């Protein structure tokens, strides 16, 4: 925001007191409390906790609160309360949010890197001074790791995941980024039918991606023995693809919400922050996938 424009813009919109934050904080409490109880039950630490019900209630209230919150901000926007400066705040906020998401994935990528290039090699005897090599006699480093250091305690997978379905998925996601960019260009030119169609195409591609991903998980569990508890290869595989998948689901929901806003006539050529933020998020998810495709499936 350049300083000279302050004179012309309306005052920065400071919303009146709002019940949404406390509602959201409470739903997060329900999600955390219920989720913990539920996970204890899943893990067999505690029996019959009411966690799953609290978690489900939290999930419903969370979705409701989020919907009301975003509806409210988009109404405020349509009512013209958002100055250019506030729009800037939203844009910067979204960018930093994506930075934080990138760092979340960086933890998993970093873990994979450390395991492959340091730790497993040391366990296999690399590094003359490391005592780690004596932990599991005869352990050999391969990647994907099919024979774990202690195969009796943690049996490894029978087969590694092949790269054909992921290659199709890579094509799908890259294409979806392109169609979304076409939609964005159509929006900028006020070309409403182009916007609608390209956005719809993006959503279709996203759903097909998720279908393939679900099929891949089914294959992994049913035929490859590649499971969460099959050692570090399965652990890193599922945490990276799993959290990416959750982000694709969230991104798809965002795209669908954008589609309905477009149908209602929201967004104009010069003024469409909501669309822009959704597009940024989608491209981010796409970039993560391309990185993931190479380090999880190819190398």
């Amino acid at each position, binding site marked *: 925001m350049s*300083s*000279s424009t*302050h*004179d012309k813009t*309306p*005052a920065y*919109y*400071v*919303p*009146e*007191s*709002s019940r949404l*934050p406390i509602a*959201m*904080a*409470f739903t*997060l*409490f329900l999600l*955390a409390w219920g*989720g913990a109880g539920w*996970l204890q039950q*899943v*893990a067999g*630490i*505690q029996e019959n906790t009411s966690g799953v019900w609290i978690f489900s209630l939290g999930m419903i209230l969370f979705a409701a609160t989020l919907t009301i919150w975003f509806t409210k901000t988009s109404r405020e926007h349509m009512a013209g309360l958002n100055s250019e*400066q*506030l729009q800037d*705040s*939203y844009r*910067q*906020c979204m960018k*930093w*949010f994506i*930075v*934080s998401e990138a*760092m979340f994935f*960086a*933890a*998993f990528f*970093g*873990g994979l890197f*450390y*395991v492959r290039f340091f730790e497993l090699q040391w*366990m296999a005897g690399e590094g003359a*001074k490391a005592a*780690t090599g004596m932990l*599991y006699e005869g352990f050999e480093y391969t990647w994907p790791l099919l024979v*774990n*250091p*202690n195969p009796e*305690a943690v049996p490894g997978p029978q087969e590694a995941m092949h790269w054909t379905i992921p290659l199709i998925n890579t094509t799908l996601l890259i294409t979806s980024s392109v169609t979304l960019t076409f939609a964005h260009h159509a929006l900028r030119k006020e070309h409403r039918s182009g916007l609608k169609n390209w956005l719809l195409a993006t959503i279709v591609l996203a759903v097909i991606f998720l279908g393939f991903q679900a099929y891949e998980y089914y294959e992994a569990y049913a035929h490859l023995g590649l499971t*969460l*508890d*099959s*050692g*570090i*290869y*399965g*652990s890193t595989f599922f*945490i990276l693809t799993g959290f990416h998948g959750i982000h694709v689901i969230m991104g798809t929901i965002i795209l669908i919400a954008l589609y309905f806003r477009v149908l209602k006539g929201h967004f104009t050529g010069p003024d469409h922050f909501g669309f822009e933020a959704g597009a940024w998020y989608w491209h981010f998810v796409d970039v993560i996938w391309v990185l993931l495709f190479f380090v999880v499936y190819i190398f």
Partner: protein
Amino acid sequence: MTAIPHDDHAHHGPAKGLWRWVVTTNHKDIGAMYLWLSFAMFLLGGAFAMVIRAELFQPGFSLVAPEFFNQMTTMHGLIMVFGAVMPAFVGLANYMIPLMIGAPDMALPRLNNLSFWILPFAFLILVSTLFMEGGGPNFGWTFYAPLSTTYGPPSTVFFILSMHIMGASSIMGAINIIVTIWNMRAPGMTWMKMPLFVWTWLITAFLLIMVMPVLAGLITMMLLDITAQTSFFNAAGGGSPLLFQHLFWFFGHPEVYIMILPAFGIISAIIPAFARKPLFGYASMVYATAAIAILSFFVWAHHMFTVGMPFAAQLFFMISTMIIAVPTGVKVFNWVATMIGGSMTFEVPMLFAIAFVVLFTIGGFSGLMLAIAPVDYQYHDTYFVVAHFHYVLVPGAVFSIMAGVYYWLPKWTGNMFHEGLAKVHFWMSFVGVNVAFFPQHFVGLAGMPRRIPDYPLQFANFNMISSMGAFLFGLSQLLFMFIVIKCVMGGKKAEAKPWEGAEGLEWDLPSPLPYHTFETPPEIK
């Protein structure tokens, strides 16, 4: 600058009653709530510390069960780091940054309230684990795997999820602060005119956005190891407990600077005010802060010299750690140079600030000793480490928070605090903190390990002295509470600028502050 016509919504006052605090979007309300929550957590974490010091008062003295002692050391650390120090700085940021940069409020006020209200719920979950079957977290605040995963109590899952929502709160708070500073500065408030507290918080918020998600990823891996039998930290399945430590300290070391950079900002406001001289080397302070933040990403493994790292890695992390002493030294030099030749007076904020400079420097020097890898083999996990980080966190971070509270309390409440009582508070805290933590250097160097409920006889005297200092320090914080409440209730009326040498936009506003400030951006000279 022409006056801007306001909509009606800009003139609403606070809602009535307690509900006001629940639904507020006002940065001053939210800042105040952060500060009160932080103080409540400070007393709770302090009570845990009192249990620890009572148990260690004498060798063989079994006040609490060793299992419970472990829960106390863990919860003391977690509560103080995530509940006391961090929320206090966020509270000060909320309260002061919009005033310092001439903004009407934080950039996203509702998000701001959400960031706050997550915290009471998160700490409710965290503290409730103490009452669960098997007790609360008992693996130290660093929750190393597999102690926390394979061998942790059943409540670990609750601990992890409370940390998740706490982290979400931190990230949202940090994004809000960064966007506020970036986008809400009054015209003319250029980057190099910003007060140092704003600068240090800009950099701190950046650190938070970079490392809190890594913590989230880490505890997610823990959660999967516990509930889904993944092998991230299990060597039998090809994972590694060291992976945990690398990820934890990649978060943990920047986290340490998250707890001290805002302190640098507060001290850089207070020392010039009472030395009646502009801050020496403003630009170098800014660059030093940025340098510390960037370096903090490359030093994490100095917490793990003894785990069996390649020699080259030890050398790298040793040198990168010692380089941090350079920008930190620049800061200490600048504070001292600001005081030299100033017409100094010693009001309570200044007393805390001077104590900060001296005692933080002691903590910094013991940090340099710990940075030397070969000697760290002796110091590692001893009371020397405990003494070191308590010197940087208590007379460092906590003293700076107290200095800040005394400095801005007249502005917030419109009343002066009781100067005499506050001086008593300062001297009790100053003596207490040194008596509590200085002897811990000696027992640590002599080999007393940290996180144990009992110790051999040769450590008895120093431990007793240390406990007495801790009790004195703990007691003096009740006096602090009394002083603050007394000041909120009433007292001598404070002027708009109660400190003669204070600089900054916040002092142009009346005391107490009106509910809304800078609805029209002020003019910056």
